[in-house]
Protein backbone atom coordinates (compact mmCIF):
# COMPACT_ATOMS: atom_id res chain seq x y z
CA UNK A 1 0.00 0.00 0.00
CA UNK A 2 1.03 3.56 -0.66
CA UNK A 3 0.11 7.02 0.53
CA UNK A 4 0.56 10.09 -1.65
CA UNK A 5 0.43 13.56 -0.15
CA UNK A 6 -0.14 16.62 -2.35
CA UNK A 7 -0.13 19.96 -0.61
CA UNK A 8 0.51 23.66 -0.92
CA UNK A 9 3.24 25.16 1.20
CA UNK A 10 5.15 28.43 1.33
CA UNK A 11 7.95 29.04 -1.16
CA UNK A 12 10.54 31.78 -1.15
CA UNK A 13 9.76 35.20 -2.67
CA UNK A 14 12.15 35.90 -5.58
CA UNK A 15 14.29 38.91 -4.91
CA UNK A 16 13.27 39.18 -1.28
CA UNK A 17 15.95 37.68 0.91
CA UNK A 18 14.34 38.89 4.13
CA UNK A 19 11.47 36.44 3.85
CA UNK A 20 12.72 32.91 4.31
CA UNK A 21 9.55 30.92 4.79
CA UNK A 22 10.29 28.39 2.12
CA UNK A 23 9.07 24.87 2.71
CA UNK A 24 11.89 22.35 2.60
CA UNK A 25 11.70 18.60 2.79
CA UNK A 26 13.80 17.08 5.54
CA UNK A 27 13.84 13.58 4.00
CA UNK A 28 15.66 11.73 1.25
CA UNK A 29 14.45 9.09 -1.17
CA UNK A 30 14.70 5.64 0.38
CA UNK A 31 14.48 6.97 3.94
CA UNK A 32 12.35 5.12 6.46
CA UNK A 33 9.92 7.47 8.17
CA UNK A 34 7.49 6.92 11.00
CA UNK A 35 4.22 8.54 11.93
CA UNK A 36 4.82 11.91 13.59
CA UNK A 37 8.29 12.51 12.16
CA UNK A 38 8.69 15.68 10.13
CA UNK A 39 8.64 15.33 6.36
CA UNK A 40 9.44 19.00 5.89
CA UNK A 41 9.57 22.36 7.61
CA UNK A 42 9.19 26.04 6.91
CA UNK A 43 9.98 29.16 8.90
CA UNK A 44 7.14 31.12 10.37
CA UNK A 45 7.72 34.61 8.95
Amino acid sequence: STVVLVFQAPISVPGDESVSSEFKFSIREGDRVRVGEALGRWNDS
Partner: protein
Amino acid sequence: SSFLRKLQTTQGRASFTGGKSSTSQGNSFLVPGATMATIVMLGALHARRMYNDKKIEEAREKGVEFEFQPDIKATFLRLVPLRSISRFWGFLTSVLQSSKTDLGNRFRWKETRKQISASNENISETSTSVDALSALALGLRRMERLRSAVDVVVPTLSSKIAILERGNYRGERERERERERERERASERARRHFSSELPIWFRPHVYRAWARAFHSNLEEAAKPLNEYASLREFFVRSLKEDSRPIDSNPCCLISPVDGTVLRFGDLKEAGTMIEQVKGFSYSVSSLLGARPLLPSMEDVQQESRVQEKAPRDEDKKSWWRITLASPKVRDPEPASPMKGLFYCVLYLKPGDYHRIHSPVDWNVLVRRHFSGRLFPLNERATRTIRNLYVENERVVLEGRWEEGYMAMAAIGATNIGSIELFIEPALGTNRPRKKLLHSEPPQERIYEPAGAGVMLKKGDEVAAFNMG
Protein backbone atom coordinates in the same frame (compact mmCIF):
# COMPACT_ATOMS: atom_id res chain seq x y z
CA SER B 1 21.12 -37.70 -3.54
CA SER B 2 19.77 -40.05 -0.85
CA PHE B 3 16.39 -39.73 -2.48
CA LEU B 4 17.84 -40.69 -5.87
CA ARG B 5 19.77 -43.56 -4.29
CA LYS B 6 16.56 -44.85 -2.71
CA LEU B 7 14.78 -44.49 -6.01
CA GLN B 8 17.48 -46.47 -7.81
CA THR B 9 17.40 -49.18 -5.15
CA THR B 10 13.63 -49.39 -5.45
CA GLN B 11 13.79 -49.61 -9.20
CA GLY B 12 16.49 -52.25 -8.93
CA ARG B 13 14.34 -54.27 -6.55
CA ALA B 14 11.32 -53.80 -8.74
CA SER B 15 13.15 -55.06 -11.79
CA PHE B 16 14.51 -57.99 -9.71
CA THR B 17 10.99 -58.96 -8.56
CA GLY B 18 9.65 -58.65 -12.05
CA GLY B 19 8.10 -55.18 -11.57
CA LYS B 20 5.34 -56.35 -9.23
CA SER B 21 5.95 -53.74 -6.53
CA SER B 22 7.02 -50.92 -8.83
CA THR B 23 3.64 -49.15 -8.83
CA SER B 24 3.19 -49.04 -5.08
CA GLN B 25 6.82 -48.09 -4.35
CA GLY B 26 6.84 -45.47 -7.10
CA ASN B 27 3.70 -43.81 -5.71
CA SER B 28 5.18 -43.61 -2.23
CA PHE B 29 8.03 -41.48 -3.64
CA LEU B 30 5.84 -39.37 -5.87
CA VAL B 31 4.50 -37.03 -3.13
CA PRO B 32 7.83 -36.43 -1.31
CA GLY B 33 9.46 -35.86 -4.70
CA ALA B 34 6.88 -33.24 -5.69
CA THR B 35 7.15 -31.56 -2.28
CA MET B 36 10.93 -31.45 -2.52
CA ALA B 37 10.78 -30.04 -6.03
CA THR B 38 8.37 -27.32 -4.87
CA ILE B 39 10.57 -26.44 -1.92
CA VAL B 40 13.66 -26.31 -4.13
CA MET B 41 11.85 -24.13 -6.65
CA LEU B 42 10.60 -21.73 -3.98
CA GLY B 43 14.07 -21.57 -2.47
CA ALA B 44 15.60 -20.82 -5.85
CA LEU B 45 13.03 -18.09 -6.54
CA HIS B 46 13.63 -16.55 -3.13
CA ALA B 47 17.40 -16.62 -3.63
CA ARG B 48 17.04 -15.00 -7.05
CA ARG B 49 14.79 -12.32 -5.62
CA MET B 50 17.26 -11.61 -2.80
CA TYR B 51 20.07 -11.41 -5.33
CA ASN B 52 18.08 -8.99 -7.51
CA ASP B 53 17.18 -6.84 -4.51
CA LYS B 54 20.84 -6.68 -3.51
CA LYS B 55 21.81 -5.65 -7.04
CA ILE B 56 19.13 -2.96 -7.06
CA GLU B 57 20.28 -1.66 -3.70
CA GLU B 58 23.89 -1.52 -4.87
CA ALA B 59 22.89 0.25 -8.07
CA ARG B 60 20.85 2.79 -6.14
CA GLU B 61 23.77 3.50 -3.85
CA LYS B 62 25.81 4.23 -6.97
CA GLY B 63 23.12 6.67 -8.10
CA VAL B 64 21.67 4.53 -10.89
CA GLU B 65 18.00 5.28 -11.49
CA PHE B 66 15.82 2.46 -12.77
CA GLU B 67 13.67 3.05 -15.78
CA PHE B 68 10.21 1.87 -16.61
CA GLN B 69 10.37 -1.57 -18.29
CA PRO B 70 7.02 -3.23 -18.96
CA ASP B 71 7.23 -7.02 -18.98
CA ILE B 72 5.08 -10.08 -19.64
CA LYS B 73 4.36 -10.50 -15.95
CA ALA B 74 2.80 -7.06 -15.81
CA THR B 75 0.64 -7.88 -18.83
CA PHE B 76 -0.36 -11.18 -17.25
CA LEU B 77 -1.33 -9.41 -14.01
CA ARG B 78 -3.89 -7.38 -15.92
CA LEU B 79 -5.72 -10.61 -16.76
CA VAL B 80 -5.71 -11.98 -13.21
CA PRO B 81 -8.78 -11.21 -11.02
CA LEU B 82 -6.70 -9.49 -8.36
CA ARG B 83 -9.68 -7.92 -6.60
CA SER B 84 -11.27 -11.32 -6.02
CA ILE B 85 -7.91 -12.71 -4.91
CA SER B 86 -7.53 -9.79 -2.51
CA ARG B 87 -10.97 -10.37 -1.03
CA PHE B 88 -10.25 -14.08 -0.69
CA TRP B 89 -7.00 -13.23 1.10
CA GLY B 90 -8.92 -11.00 3.50
CA PHE B 91 -11.41 -13.80 4.06
CA LEU B 92 -8.61 -16.28 4.64
CA THR B 93 -6.80 -14.11 7.17
CA SER B 94 -9.98 -13.47 9.09
CA VAL B 95 -11.41 -17.01 9.06
CA LEU B 96 -8.27 -19.08 9.34
CA GLN B 97 -9.58 -21.14 12.19
CA SER B 98 -13.14 -21.88 11.14
CA SER B 99 -12.18 -24.47 8.53
CA LYS B 100 -9.79 -26.25 10.90
CA THR B 101 -12.27 -26.64 13.71
CA ASP B 102 -15.39 -26.88 11.67
CA LEU B 103 -16.26 -30.35 12.91
CA GLY B 104 -15.45 -29.43 16.48
CA ASN B 105 -17.59 -26.35 16.18
CA ARG B 106 -20.51 -28.33 14.82
CA PHE B 107 -20.25 -30.69 17.77
CA ARG B 108 -20.02 -27.80 20.20
CA TRP B 109 -22.89 -26.06 18.48
CA LYS B 110 -25.05 -29.16 18.98
CA GLU B 111 -24.11 -29.15 22.65
CA THR B 112 -24.91 -25.46 22.92
CA ARG B 113 -28.25 -25.97 21.22
CA LYS B 114 -29.01 -28.71 23.71
CA GLN B 115 -28.09 -26.35 26.54
CA ILE B 116 -30.27 -23.61 25.13
CA SER B 117 -33.25 -25.96 24.69
CA ALA B 118 -32.69 -27.21 28.28
CA SER B 119 -32.68 -23.59 29.45
CA ASN B 120 -35.89 -22.98 27.52
CA GLU B 121 -37.48 -25.99 29.18
CA ASN B 122 -36.40 -24.67 32.57
CA ILE B 123 -37.86 -21.33 31.69
CA SER B 124 -41.18 -22.89 30.63
CA GLU B 125 -41.23 -24.87 33.88
CA THR B 126 -40.45 -21.70 35.77
CA SER B 127 -43.22 -19.82 34.02
CA THR B 128 -45.57 -22.66 34.96
CA SER B 129 -44.47 -22.36 38.58
CA VAL B 130 -44.88 -18.58 38.36
CA ASP B 131 -48.44 -19.11 37.10
CA ALA B 132 -49.10 -21.49 39.96
CA LEU B 133 -47.74 -18.96 42.44
CA SER B 134 -49.91 -16.23 40.97
CA ALA B 135 -52.95 -18.48 41.29
CA LEU B 136 -51.95 -19.24 44.84
CA ALA B 137 -51.56 -15.56 45.59
CA LEU B 138 -54.99 -14.90 44.13
CA GLY B 139 -56.43 -17.64 46.31
CA LEU B 140 -54.67 -16.27 49.34
CA ARG B 141 -56.05 -12.81 48.66
CA ARG B 142 -59.57 -14.25 48.46
CA MET B 143 -58.98 -16.12 51.67
CA GLU B 144 -57.74 -12.93 53.23
CA ARG B 145 -60.88 -11.10 52.20
CA LEU B 146 -62.93 -13.88 53.71
CA ARG B 147 -60.87 -13.82 56.80
CA SER B 148 -61.11 -10.05 57.12
CA ALA B 149 -64.81 -10.29 56.65
CA VAL B 150 -65.25 -13.21 59.00
CA ASP B 151 -62.48 -12.83 61.43
CA VAL B 152 -60.97 -9.45 62.23
CA VAL B 153 -59.05 -10.96 65.05
CA VAL B 154 -56.01 -11.77 62.95
CA PRO B 155 -55.14 -8.41 61.31
CA THR B 156 -51.49 -9.21 60.82
CA LEU B 157 -52.16 -12.27 58.68
CA SER B 158 -52.74 -10.34 55.48
CA SER B 159 -49.56 -8.36 55.83
CA LYS B 160 -47.63 -11.57 56.44
CA ILE B 161 -49.07 -13.10 53.27
CA ALA B 162 -48.22 -10.00 51.28
CA ILE B 163 -44.61 -10.15 52.47
CA LEU B 164 -44.49 -13.78 51.54
CA GLU B 165 -45.83 -12.99 48.09
CA ARG B 166 -43.31 -10.25 47.47
CA GLY B 167 -40.48 -12.42 48.67
CA ASN B 168 -41.48 -15.22 46.37
CA TYR B 169 -41.87 -12.86 43.45
CA ARG B 170 -38.50 -11.17 44.00
CA GLY B 171 -36.70 -14.46 44.37
CA GLU B 172 -38.30 -15.78 41.23
CA ARG B 173 -37.43 -12.61 39.33
CA GLU B 174 -33.79 -12.91 40.42
CA ARG B 175 -33.65 -16.51 39.26
CA GLU B 176 -35.23 -15.51 35.97
CA ARG B 177 -32.59 -12.83 35.47
CA GLU B 178 -29.82 -15.31 36.23
CA ARG B 179 -31.24 -17.73 33.66
CA GLU B 180 -31.40 -14.89 31.13
CA ARG B 181 -27.73 -14.10 31.77
CA GLU B 182 -26.82 -17.77 31.41
CA ARG B 183 -28.68 -17.91 28.10
CA GLU B 184 -26.75 -14.85 26.86
CA ARG B 185 -23.47 -16.42 27.92
CA ALA B 186 -24.36 -19.60 26.03
CA SER B 187 -25.19 -17.59 22.92
CA GLU B 188 -21.90 -15.69 23.22
CA ARG B 189 -20.00 -18.99 23.53
CA ALA B 190 -21.78 -20.28 20.45
CA ARG B 191 -20.99 -17.09 18.55
CA ARG B 192 -17.33 -17.36 19.48
CA HIS B 193 -17.16 -20.98 18.37
CA PHE B 194 -18.58 -20.07 15.01
CA SER B 195 -16.77 -16.78 14.52
CA SER B 196 -13.50 -16.37 12.68
CA GLU B 197 -11.10 -16.38 15.58
CA LEU B 198 -7.76 -18.07 15.93
CA PRO B 199 -7.38 -20.29 19.00
CA ILE B 200 -5.89 -18.18 21.78
CA TRP B 201 -2.88 -20.48 22.27
CA PHE B 202 -2.13 -20.33 18.54
CA ARG B 203 -2.31 -16.54 18.12
CA PRO B 204 1.14 -15.49 19.44
CA HIS B 205 2.83 -18.11 17.20
CA VAL B 206 1.09 -16.83 14.08
CA TYR B 207 1.78 -13.16 14.84
CA ARG B 208 5.40 -13.78 15.79
CA ALA B 209 5.90 -15.67 12.54
CA TRP B 210 4.38 -12.75 10.67
CA ALA B 211 6.59 -10.30 12.54
CA ARG B 212 9.72 -12.34 11.76
CA ALA B 213 8.82 -12.57 8.09
CA PHE B 214 8.03 -8.87 7.65
CA HIS B 215 10.14 -7.24 10.38
CA SER B 216 7.33 -5.92 12.57
CA ASN B 217 7.98 -4.63 16.07
CA LEU B 218 5.66 -6.58 18.35
CA GLU B 219 6.62 -4.62 21.44
CA GLU B 220 4.74 -1.62 20.09
CA ALA B 221 1.40 -3.44 19.81
CA ALA B 222 -1.22 -1.86 22.06
CA LYS B 223 -2.68 -5.17 23.24
CA PRO B 224 -1.16 -8.54 24.22
CA LEU B 225 -0.82 -10.79 21.17
CA ASN B 226 -3.41 -13.30 22.30
CA GLU B 227 -6.09 -10.61 22.24
CA TYR B 228 -5.99 -10.19 18.46
CA ALA B 229 -8.63 -12.60 17.23
CA SER B 230 -7.32 -12.94 13.68
CA LEU B 231 -4.36 -12.02 11.52
CA ARG B 232 -6.52 -9.37 9.88
CA GLU B 233 -7.21 -7.76 13.25
CA PHE B 234 -3.54 -7.99 14.20
CA PHE B 235 -2.53 -6.39 10.92
CA VAL B 236 -4.42 -3.15 11.66
CA ARG B 237 -3.34 -3.11 15.29
CA SER B 238 -3.01 0.20 17.08
CA LEU B 239 0.18 1.08 18.93
CA LYS B 240 0.96 1.81 22.55
CA GLU B 241 0.63 5.40 23.61
CA ASP B 242 3.71 7.54 22.88
CA SER B 243 5.07 4.96 20.44
CA ARG B 244 4.86 7.61 17.73
CA PRO B 245 5.64 11.02 19.22
CA ILE B 246 4.27 13.83 17.06
CA ASP B 247 6.74 16.57 16.11
CA SER B 248 5.56 19.56 18.13
CA ASN B 249 7.02 22.18 15.76
CA PRO B 250 4.01 24.11 14.39
CA CYS B 251 5.90 24.81 11.16
CA CYS B 252 6.35 21.21 10.10
CA LEU B 253 4.39 18.66 8.16
CA ILE B 254 4.57 15.20 9.66
CA SER B 255 4.57 11.79 8.06
CA PRO B 256 1.06 10.30 8.05
CA VAL B 257 2.34 6.69 7.95
CA ASP B 258 5.24 4.42 8.75
CA GLY B 259 6.89 3.77 5.43
CA THR B 260 9.64 4.34 2.90
CA VAL B 261 10.00 7.58 0.98
CA LEU B 262 9.73 6.75 -2.72
CA ARG B 263 9.43 10.19 -4.26
CA PHE B 264 9.00 13.77 -3.19
CA GLY B 265 9.39 17.19 -4.69
CA ASP B 266 7.49 20.17 -6.02
CA LEU B 267 5.18 20.38 -8.99
CA LYS B 268 6.10 23.91 -10.05
CA GLU B 269 8.51 23.26 -12.85
CA ALA B 270 7.80 19.69 -13.81
CA GLY B 271 4.11 20.43 -14.38
CA THR B 272 1.35 18.60 -12.59
CA MET B 273 3.03 15.21 -13.03
CA ILE B 274 4.56 12.86 -10.48
CA GLU B 275 7.30 10.52 -11.60
CA GLN B 276 6.52 6.85 -10.97
CA VAL B 277 9.98 5.84 -12.13
CA LYS B 278 12.43 7.41 -14.53
CA GLY B 279 10.79 7.73 -17.90
CA PHE B 280 7.25 7.40 -16.72
CA SER B 281 5.01 9.85 -14.89
CA TYR B 282 1.36 10.13 -13.99
CA SER B 283 -0.75 13.21 -13.60
CA VAL B 284 -1.79 14.52 -10.21
CA SER B 285 -5.30 15.27 -11.40
CA SER B 286 -5.72 11.64 -12.55
CA LEU B 287 -4.52 10.43 -9.17
CA LEU B 288 -6.76 12.71 -7.15
CA GLY B 289 -9.60 13.04 -9.62
CA ALA B 290 -9.53 16.66 -8.61
CA ARG B 291 -11.57 19.32 -10.29
CA PRO B 292 -12.71 21.93 -7.83
CA LEU B 293 -9.99 22.09 -5.21
CA LEU B 294 -6.63 21.26 -6.79
CA PRO B 295 -5.04 24.57 -7.75
CA SER B 296 -3.99 24.52 -11.40
CA MET B 297 -0.47 25.45 -12.41
CA GLU B 298 -1.92 28.59 -14.02
CA ASP B 299 -3.30 29.59 -10.62
CA VAL B 300 0.05 28.99 -8.93
CA GLN B 301 1.96 30.85 -11.66
CA GLN B 302 -0.58 33.70 -11.67
CA GLU B 303 -0.24 33.96 -7.91
CA SER B 304 3.52 34.09 -8.34
CA ARG B 305 3.26 36.84 -10.95
CA VAL B 306 0.92 38.91 -8.76
CA GLN B 307 3.28 38.53 -5.81
CA GLU B 308 6.26 39.51 -7.93
CA LYS B 309 4.53 42.58 -9.42
CA ALA B 310 3.18 43.94 -6.16
CA PRO B 311 6.42 45.56 -4.86
CA ARG B 312 7.15 47.20 -8.25
CA ASP B 313 3.70 48.84 -8.34
CA GLU B 314 4.40 50.34 -4.96
CA ASP B 315 7.69 51.77 -6.24
CA LYS B 316 5.93 53.54 -9.12
CA LYS B 317 3.60 55.56 -6.86
CA SER B 318 4.25 59.32 -7.13
CA TRP B 319 5.09 61.52 -4.07
CA TRP B 320 1.65 63.20 -3.94
CA ARG B 321 -0.22 59.90 -4.09
CA ILE B 322 1.81 58.64 -1.17
CA THR B 323 1.16 61.88 0.75
CA LEU B 324 -2.58 61.93 0.11
CA ALA B 325 -3.20 58.26 0.27
CA SER B 326 -4.56 56.40 3.17
CA PRO B 327 -2.22 55.02 5.84
CA LYS B 328 -2.80 51.60 4.29
CA VAL B 329 -0.86 52.67 1.17
CA ARG B 330 1.93 54.35 3.08
CA ASP B 331 2.33 51.33 5.30
CA PRO B 332 1.43 48.44 3.06
CA GLU B 333 0.63 45.04 4.56
CA PRO B 334 3.39 42.52 4.07
CA ALA B 335 2.62 40.28 1.14
CA SER B 336 1.53 36.80 2.12
CA PRO B 337 4.14 34.17 1.28
CA MET B 338 3.80 32.50 -2.09
CA LYS B 339 2.55 28.97 -2.22
CA GLY B 340 4.05 26.11 -4.14
CA LEU B 341 2.57 22.70 -4.78
CA PHE B 342 4.49 19.76 -3.31
CA TYR B 343 4.07 15.99 -3.22
CA CYS B 344 5.43 13.04 -1.29
CA VAL B 345 4.98 9.31 -2.04
CA LEU B 346 5.34 6.86 0.87
CA TYR B 347 5.34 3.09 0.49
CA LEU B 348 4.19 0.80 3.32
CA LYS B 349 5.72 -2.68 3.55
CA PRO B 350 3.56 -5.57 4.79
CA GLY B 351 5.19 -5.47 8.23
CA ASP B 352 4.67 -1.75 8.77
CA TYR B 353 2.12 -0.14 11.02
CA HIS B 354 -0.84 0.30 8.67
CA ARG B 355 -2.84 3.17 10.12
CA ILE B 356 -2.89 6.61 8.52
CA HIS B 357 -2.69 9.78 10.59
CA SER B 358 -3.31 13.41 9.80
CA PRO B 359 -0.12 15.20 8.62
CA VAL B 360 -1.28 18.67 9.76
CA ASP B 361 -4.30 20.43 11.21
CA TRP B 362 -6.70 20.56 8.30
CA ASN B 363 -10.32 20.46 7.19
CA VAL B 364 -11.29 17.50 5.03
CA LEU B 365 -13.88 18.76 2.60
CA VAL B 366 -14.23 16.01 0.03
CA ARG B 367 -13.73 12.25 -0.13
CA ARG B 368 -13.36 10.38 -3.41
CA HIS B 369 -13.33 6.61 -3.76
CA PHE B 370 -11.88 5.13 -6.93
CA SER B 371 -12.87 1.51 -7.39
CA GLY B 372 -9.94 0.38 -9.50
CA ARG B 373 -7.62 -2.55 -9.90
CA LEU B 374 -5.46 -4.01 -7.16
CA PHE B 375 -2.01 -4.45 -8.61
CA PRO B 376 0.84 -5.09 -6.20
CA LEU B 377 2.66 -1.91 -5.26
CA ASN B 378 6.15 -3.23 -4.60
CA GLU B 379 9.25 -1.80 -6.22
CA ARG B 380 9.23 -4.22 -9.11
CA ALA B 381 5.61 -3.39 -9.86
CA THR B 382 6.38 0.34 -9.99
CA ARG B 383 9.03 -0.37 -12.63
CA THR B 384 6.89 -2.66 -14.76
CA ILE B 385 3.22 -1.70 -14.44
CA ARG B 386 2.20 1.49 -16.15
CA ASN B 387 -0.11 3.93 -14.31
CA LEU B 388 0.06 1.84 -11.17
CA TYR B 389 -1.14 4.48 -8.73
CA VAL B 390 -3.75 5.85 -11.08
CA GLU B 391 -5.31 2.46 -11.82
CA ASN B 392 -5.38 0.97 -8.31
CA GLU B 393 -8.25 1.20 -5.84
CA ARG B 394 -7.82 4.28 -3.70
CA VAL B 395 -9.46 6.75 -1.39
CA VAL B 396 -8.62 10.43 -1.73
CA LEU B 397 -9.26 13.01 0.95
CA GLU B 398 -9.14 16.63 -0.11
CA GLY B 399 -9.31 19.76 1.95
CA ARG B 400 -7.57 22.87 3.10
CA TRP B 401 -5.02 23.75 5.75
CA GLU B 402 -3.54 27.05 6.83
CA GLU B 403 -1.13 27.09 3.86
CA GLY B 404 -3.71 26.17 1.23
CA TYR B 405 -4.57 22.95 -0.52
CA MET B 406 -4.07 19.51 1.01
CA ALA B 407 -4.85 16.05 -0.41
CA MET B 408 -4.03 12.58 0.79
CA ALA B 409 -4.46 9.49 -1.39
CA ALA B 410 -4.45 6.04 0.23
CA ILE B 411 -3.78 3.47 -2.50
CA GLY B 412 -4.62 -0.19 -1.96
CA ALA B 413 -2.68 -3.23 -3.20
CA THR B 414 -3.44 -6.92 -3.78
CA ASN B 415 -2.87 -8.05 -0.21
CA ILE B 416 -4.10 -4.82 1.36
CA GLY B 417 -7.09 -4.01 -0.77
CA SER B 418 -9.57 -2.24 1.44
CA ILE B 419 -9.25 1.14 3.08
CA GLU B 420 -11.19 1.94 6.22
CA LEU B 421 -11.96 5.58 6.94
CA PHE B 422 -12.39 6.40 10.61
CA ILE B 423 -14.15 9.65 9.73
CA GLU B 424 -16.62 7.73 7.55
CA PRO B 425 -16.96 4.16 8.87
CA ALA B 426 -19.78 3.35 6.45
CA LEU B 427 -17.50 3.60 3.41
CA GLY B 428 -16.92 0.18 1.87
CA THR B 429 -13.96 -0.44 -0.41
CA ASN B 430 -12.78 -3.45 -2.42
CA ARG B 431 -16.33 -4.65 -2.92
CA PRO B 432 -17.38 -6.89 -5.82
CA ARG B 433 -18.23 -4.79 -8.83
CA LYS B 434 -21.30 -5.11 -10.97
CA LYS B 435 -19.62 -3.70 -14.05
CA LEU B 436 -16.65 -5.26 -15.76
CA LEU B 437 -15.24 -1.93 -16.89
CA HIS B 438 -12.43 -0.51 -14.80
CA SER B 439 -13.04 3.10 -15.77
CA GLU B 440 -15.87 3.85 -13.37
CA PRO B 441 -16.15 7.44 -12.19
CA PRO B 442 -15.13 7.98 -8.56
CA GLN B 443 -17.74 8.11 -5.85
CA GLU B 444 -17.54 11.49 -4.23
CA ARG B 445 -18.84 12.73 -0.93
CA ILE B 446 -18.74 16.32 0.28
CA TYR B 447 -18.50 16.48 4.04
CA GLU B 448 -20.85 18.68 6.05
CA PRO B 449 -20.97 21.47 6.98
CA ALA B 450 -20.12 22.81 3.53
CA GLY B 451 -16.87 24.74 3.54
CA ALA B 452 -15.73 23.38 6.90
CA GLY B 453 -16.01 19.60 6.47
CA VAL B 454 -14.33 17.41 9.04
CA MET B 455 -11.67 19.04 11.19
CA LEU B 456 -8.60 16.89 11.82
CA LYS B 457 -5.76 17.64 14.16
CA LYS B 458 -2.14 16.83 13.44
CA GLY B 459 -1.53 13.19 14.37
CA ASP B 460 -5.20 12.17 14.49
CA GLU B 461 -5.98 8.71 13.14
CA VAL B 462 -7.72 9.07 9.80
CA ALA B 463 -7.79 5.67 8.14
CA ALA B 464 -6.36 2.16 8.07
CA PHE B 465 -5.39 -0.32 5.40
CA ASN B 466 -7.10 -3.67 5.85
CA MET B 467 -6.07 -7.07 4.57
CA GLY B 468 -8.13 -8.05 1.56
